[in-house]
């Protein structure tokens, strides 16, 4: 299979079941909503080192938010149930509570599994906090120097998918970056998906474990490192001198498939030699995203 002359390898991305929450952050304007969202999702690229993965899902219009202000929706993922509320309480408390004009709402209202994030943060009010029940949802009003911070008492948690990916194999670093940027641009603002890495792109894809260091749980993916082509079992075709990876997390499999579809198509530009994906032989993750199957659904 080829798209714009770029071969799509017959392989699959292997992804994991994670726990996901969606937060809606609103602000007096889009700038302040984004300021909070950027801080909230900072240092949340991979569970390997950050204990969570997070990113901006999309911008929300005034008509889409509970308080009628501009907003940002954020997805937050962890590997287990227990660590999601821990991460949210710490991060929302330090980044959204502190950010001028913002309020924080639940973006998964119909999900039965609830995390008491707002209830935990209410104690910042030192007894001066007040709650309001509006349309069956409880909100907490925390007095702050600016005025008040509003946060919903609970946030929904559901199963999500983490680790969807594809690799862009290019003739040089410039072509790889241009293709990755095009892919990210195409996937930006798609519902149910985030790209947790810087600018949506990973340059340091990893393999499980280490050949040399026992304590390392992930080390460089030498099979796809062009500089190691001559001294490892390289999987890089001839003519490939740079590789970038796009990692996708999402609320469900269809959301990730839809994003991969538009992302891969956009990545197939000048200088790209092929598109492939990272997996562990299909033994670790329950979700397998077969590139050709996904791309065939758009008649590529």
């Amino acid at each position, binding site marked *: 299979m080829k798209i714009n002359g770029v071969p799509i390898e017959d392989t699959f991305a292997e992804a994991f079941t994670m726990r996901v929450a969606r937060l809606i952050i609103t602000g007096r304007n889009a700038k302040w909503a984004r300021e909070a969202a950027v801080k909230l999702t900072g240092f949340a690229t991979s569970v390997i080192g950050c204990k969570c993965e997070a990113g901006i899902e999309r911008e929300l219009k005034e008509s889409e938010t509970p308080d009628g*202000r501009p907003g940002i929706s954020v997805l937050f993922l962890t590997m287990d149930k227990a660590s999601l509320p821990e991460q949210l309480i710490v991060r929302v408390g330090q980044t959204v509570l502190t950010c001028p004009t913002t*309020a924080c709402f639940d973006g998964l209202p119909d999900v039965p599994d609830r995390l008491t994030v707002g209830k935990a943060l209410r104690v910042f009010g030192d007894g001066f906090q007040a709650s309001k029940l*509006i349309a069956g949802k409880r909100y907490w009003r925390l007095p702050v120097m600016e005025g008040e911070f*509003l946060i919903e008492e609970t946030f929904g948690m559901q199963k999500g998918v983490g680790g969807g990916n594809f690799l862009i194999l290019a003739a040089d670093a410039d072509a790889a970056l241009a293709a990755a940027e095009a892919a990210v641009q195409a996937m930006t603002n798609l519902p149910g998906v985030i790209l947790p890495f810087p600018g949506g792109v990973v340059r340091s894809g990893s393999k499980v474990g280490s050949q040399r260091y026992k304590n390392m749980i992930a080390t460089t993916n030498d099979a796809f490192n062009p500089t190691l082509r001559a001294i490892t079992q390289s999987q890089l075709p001839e003519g490939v001198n740079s590789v970038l990876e796009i990692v996708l997390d999402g609320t469900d499999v269809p959301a990730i498939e839809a994003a991969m579809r538009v992302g891969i198509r956009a990545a197939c530009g000048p200088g790209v030699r092929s598109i492939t994906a990272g997996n562990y032989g299909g033994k670790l993750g329950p979700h397998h995203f077969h590139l050709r199957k996904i791309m065939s659904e758009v008649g590529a």
Partner: protein
Amino acid sequence: MSAAVTLSLAQQPEHTLVADCIAADRFASLGAKQIAELPVVHGGRRATLGDFFKVRGERSTTLRIEGDLARVEGIGTAMAGGEIVIAGGAGRDVGVQMIGGRIDVGGDAGDNAGGARPGASRGMAGGEIVIRGSAGAEAGARMRRGLVVVTGDARRGAGSGMIAGTVVVFGKAAAGAGRFLKRGSLVALGAIERPATFRYACTYRPPHLPVLLRYLRARYGLAVAEPQITGRYARYSGDLAELGRGEILQWVAP
């Protein structure tokens, strides 16, 4: 089971008709005949609901009431769920001590809407009452939890003695509004005769009000103006003769 139970006033009561048997959740398991046999008190004498109302439908948590109900008292007393839609106005004690559900009054309501029974320390403890007109005295008095909305004026003592919850008055709130309030919010979109025992705190944009006012507009179709949603409110803490943890939020400007 019907989509709704409808009570149409067939016999205008000559005296006060205490109909505290009317509650949407109670009708969920009753047939039309059983509903008609529910007890009421007319001028101090026992009677049945069927003596005054024609009953259509059965076994539904949605209840519609039609007719001039100015003399009918206690509609929705202690109601725990469901919805009552009253086509016109209603007498006193609408939703007294209700704990859940919704009551939508299409006109004026009498005294003590959402309030407490005589001698009780607590009034309404949950649910929502929307009065599309003016309210009598002490709307939401001693409320523990819940929401009372008055689109017109509220006579004396709206929200007086509130323990928590929210009262919203679109029109004028007369003297005694919020008096002896412990916690809770009295939102005044019009003029309010504020007790002297409330102290000014600041003028700001309470972040929960856009959520609340947009909900009222969407759920009940109330005419909430955009400046009321986005505007600033003066916050008065009180009642300082009580806990002082409550507030009057008075709309001041866009």
